[in-house]
Each structure stands twice: as C-alpha cells, then as structure tokens.
C-alpha cells in the first residue's frame, strides 16, 4: 500500500487538476454563449443570400457559358476537401470527429478512383498529414484569430476560389462540426464548389411585379457566387467555434466529475491507511506494556 505521504501528494495533485478542468469548463461555457450569439447574428444574411440566389438561379439557365462556380468544370476527377478544425485541443473528440469524417470521405473517393487533395484550416487538422502525407494542397494559418470575422472566411474563400479557377480541383467539399447542442456536435461534409443552389428555398417575394435587374441576372449571379462560397465557409467557422466550446465544456465537465470521484476514492484509501497505521502502533504499545508485566 502506498505511503500516507504519497497518497496525500496524489490527492493534492488531483485536486489542482480538478480546479483547472473546472475553470476551463466555465470559460468554455461563457465562450459558448458568445459563439452561439455570433452564429445567430449571422443567420439573416445567409438566409437572405440564399433566397436571392434561389430566385436568380431559377431565372438563369446553366450552360457552357455560365460561371464555372455554378456549372462546374465539367469533370469530377479532383476533389478538394477543406477541413476546418480548431486551433486548440482538450475539446473531447471534436477535432478527431471532423478529421475522421474527412478521412472517410477521402477513402471513399479514392476507392472510386478519384484524386483527393486536402485544404487544412486550423492547427488540429494537420494530423491528416500522417494519413495522406503527399496530398496536402495547403495549410491555412488561423492561429492569430481569436473570434472569427467574415474577413477570415473571405481569405479562405478567395484562396480556394483562386485554386479552383486555376484548375487545381473540380469539386470542393467543406468539413466542419455542426452545432446541435452543448452535448451534440455532428461532423458534416458538404459540397460547396460548384455551388449547389437550394431551389426549394422560397424565392424572394416580388409582389407580382417584374423585378428589374441591375446590371443583369448573369452579372449579379456571377458577383454573388464567390460571396456565397465565402458565406458558407463563414457559417462553417461560426458553427465550428460554437461546437468547439460546447465539446470542450462537456469534456471538461466529465473530467471535473472524474477528478471528484478519484479524490473520494483516494481520500477513503488515505483514511484507511491512516487508521491501519494507528491501530498497528497501538497494538505495538499495548503488547509492549503487556510484556513488561
């Protein structure tokens, strides 16, 4: 059995770990609220843009001359997987879930004979290098970002679109964790290039009157397409930020509880050892006294 001193040190160290996990949980809870607010605040823009895109796409027919972002390159050989993860660990399975979803998709595509490239956004996505060392197209630096701004998403979108225009890939997928609740974050992958327009979105109410377009439908659509890619990435980053904090909160809550259980166990063990030591000492004294009689 461990000595009393060793047990005491052990209890102290678990206690200080518990303090840290508890603090991390509370910080994550506060950050989660802010991240959720940011995600909600971004919704009107995305909804409005989606409606406008849907009503424009209904008017413009896809043809050879359509913007590539809408019509695609006509091939589906090279796939780019954009993997958005967080910059920090200690968030449960948050990052590994996203990476796993991306890996699974990559394996699926490779089995179908396609070429797969990765675009890593976020430090924790770099583990992909271990599995696909030669297929990392880019590693987007995000460590300086504290709270996600639209400009950050724009930077990624511009980079990705430039690569698309240069013919580096045909189809782009985006991987991130969709925020459902503090307990549930679902890793998702969706195609963002070519832009898949949700034609089921209610078209903009035009009050029965003919809508006038300035300059014209095609030009507006061509202008909106890259913006749509940027907004999709921005929404993914916002969802990711909320998911990360939710995941961390849950993980740290579990860790705090586990530490509490461990402290209880160790305390019982400590008390028992102490009692055993006292008993032994007493027995020694009494038997010593008996022997002197």
């Amino acid at each position, binding site marked *: 059995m461990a000595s009393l001193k060793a047990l005491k040190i052990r209890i102290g160290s678990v206690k200080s770990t518990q303090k840290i996990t508890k603090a991390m949980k509370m910080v994550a809870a506060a950050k989660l609220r802010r991240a959720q607010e*940011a995600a909600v*605040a*971004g919704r*009107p*823009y*995305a909804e*409005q*843009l989606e409606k*406008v895109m849907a009503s*424009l796409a209904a008017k413009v027919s896809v043809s050879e001359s359509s913007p590539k972002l809408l019509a695609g390159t006509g091939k589906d050989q090279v796939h780019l997987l954009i993997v958005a993860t967080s910059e920090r660990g200690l968030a449960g399975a948050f990052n590994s879930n996203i990476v796993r979803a991306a890996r699974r998709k990559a394996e699926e595509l490779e089995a179908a004979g396609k070429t797969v490239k990765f675009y890593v956004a976020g430090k924790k996505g770099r583990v992909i290098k271990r599995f696909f060392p030669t297929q990392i197209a880019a590693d987007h630096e995000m460590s300086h970002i504290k709270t996600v*701004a*639209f400009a950050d*998403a*724009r930077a990624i979108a511009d980079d990705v679109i430039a690569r698309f225009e240069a013919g580096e890939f045909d189809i782009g997928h985006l991987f991130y964790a969709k925020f459902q609740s503090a307990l549930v974050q679902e890793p998702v992958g969706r195609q963002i290039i070519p832009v898949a327009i949700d034609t089921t979105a209610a078209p*903009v*109410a*035009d*009050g029965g*009157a*003919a*809508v*006038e*377009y*300035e*300059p014209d439908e095609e*030009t*507006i659509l061509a*202008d*909106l397409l890259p*913006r749509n890619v*940027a*907004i999709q990435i*921005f929404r993914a980053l916002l969802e990711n930020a909320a998911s990360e904090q939710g995941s961390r909160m849950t993980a740290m809550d579990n860790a705090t509880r586990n530490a509490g259980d461990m402290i209880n166990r160790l305390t019982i063990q400590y008390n028992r050892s102490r009692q055993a030591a006292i008993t032994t000492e007493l027995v020694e004294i009494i038997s010593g006294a008996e022997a002197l009689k």
Partner: protein
Amino acid sequence: MLHFELVTPEKLVRSEDVYMVVVPGSEGDFGVLEGHAPVMSTIRDGALSVYRTEKGEPELIAIEGGFAEVNANGLTVLAERAA
C-alpha cells in the same frame, strides 16, 4: 414609410422604417422611397444615405461589397462590411 434593412454576415446592422435611402448602385445611384418597383442591384463601395424624414439631413453609412434588393417588404441591403 420605407422598411429598410442593412445586413452584414456578422449581424443585422439596421432594421427600421425610414423616409428614403439613396443606394450607390453599380450602374449609378438610385433613391428608394416607399412603394418602389422591385429591383435587384449590385452596389459599388460607397455610402448609403439614409433620410429618416423628408426634410432631415441624411445619415451616411459606408458599405463595402454589397447587393441591394427592393421588394414589396421594403429595401434590403446585404453588405460585407458596414460602418
């Protein structure tokens, strides 16, 4: 009154009833009053002039990378940045 909304990806900047808004469209400025015909237009970087009342001084809001839409519900401006 004209219902006017200004939205950026980060938040809903304005949602209010005003008298008139002058929008810097990519093919020229245009003023939007209540009951304006439906229009969709891209916007060049510039300033929106918001007239709360008919006689009042306009309030200028600088916007970047935008798009304006007028429909039966009023005017909606989507901008990447607004200050």
